[in-house]
């Protein structure tokens, strides 16, 4: 399946990635599995996605938890806890 991933704020800055298109062999996978997959890229990726930042995930503009399933064509986003207002 093909998905699009966005990174925001500290993640975007540290990973030096704001968006990427990813093609995966799986038909569907959880947010947690995608994080684990991306965390293999380097220590920095691991720290950002699995570390103490408490990164949050969204699928198609909807906040989701680690167990939410990602499907073909989805827009996924990872970001730190929000600080607006």
């Amino acid at each position, binding site marked *: 399946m093909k998905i699009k991933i966005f990174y*925001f704020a500290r993640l975007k800055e540290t990973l030096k990635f704001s968006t990427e298109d990813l093609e995966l062999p799986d038909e569907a996978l959880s947010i947690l599995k995608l994080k684990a997959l991306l965390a293999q890229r380097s220590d920095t990726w691991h720290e950002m996605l699995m570390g103490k930042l408490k990164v949050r995930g*969204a699928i198609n*503009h*909807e906040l989701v938890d680690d167990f939410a399933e990602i499907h073909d064509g989805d827009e996924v986003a990872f970001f730190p806890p929000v600080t607006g207002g």
Partner: protein
Amino acid sequence: MTIRVQIQDFDAGFEISKLRLARPDVGAVVSFVGQVRDLNEGNMVAALTLEHYPGMTEKSLEAIVTQAKSRWNIMDATIIHRVGTLNPLDQIVLVAVSSAHRGEAFNACEFIMDYLKTEAPFWKKETTDEGEQWLDAKETDETARNRWKK
């Protein structure tokens, strides 16, 4: 409902009047204006840069207003949130709510702010003498939001 995420400043008075004059059965408009403070946790703030997630931001703000409308008998609501680089004394956000009676507007306005702070995808980066740093989410905001879950 009016939801705007924008770089430019806004005129709070104009937005309040618009809500107020839209319907002759409006009795109250409660509003919140947030501004950039010059000091944050002891550091002089030179600038504050706001990033957001276009698309999701608007959608989450709309969902918050819809939730407020389902909980209280309010007439309309306006949210304007700025993004980009701001300086001390700049306005950051306006939330304004109109209703027939004041209690509903007070509750809905505070509810919207508490949810905006904890659920809308905005992030703040602060520039001080010490350099730049991303701000951490505050536990007090989480606590404020959770009051409404009772």
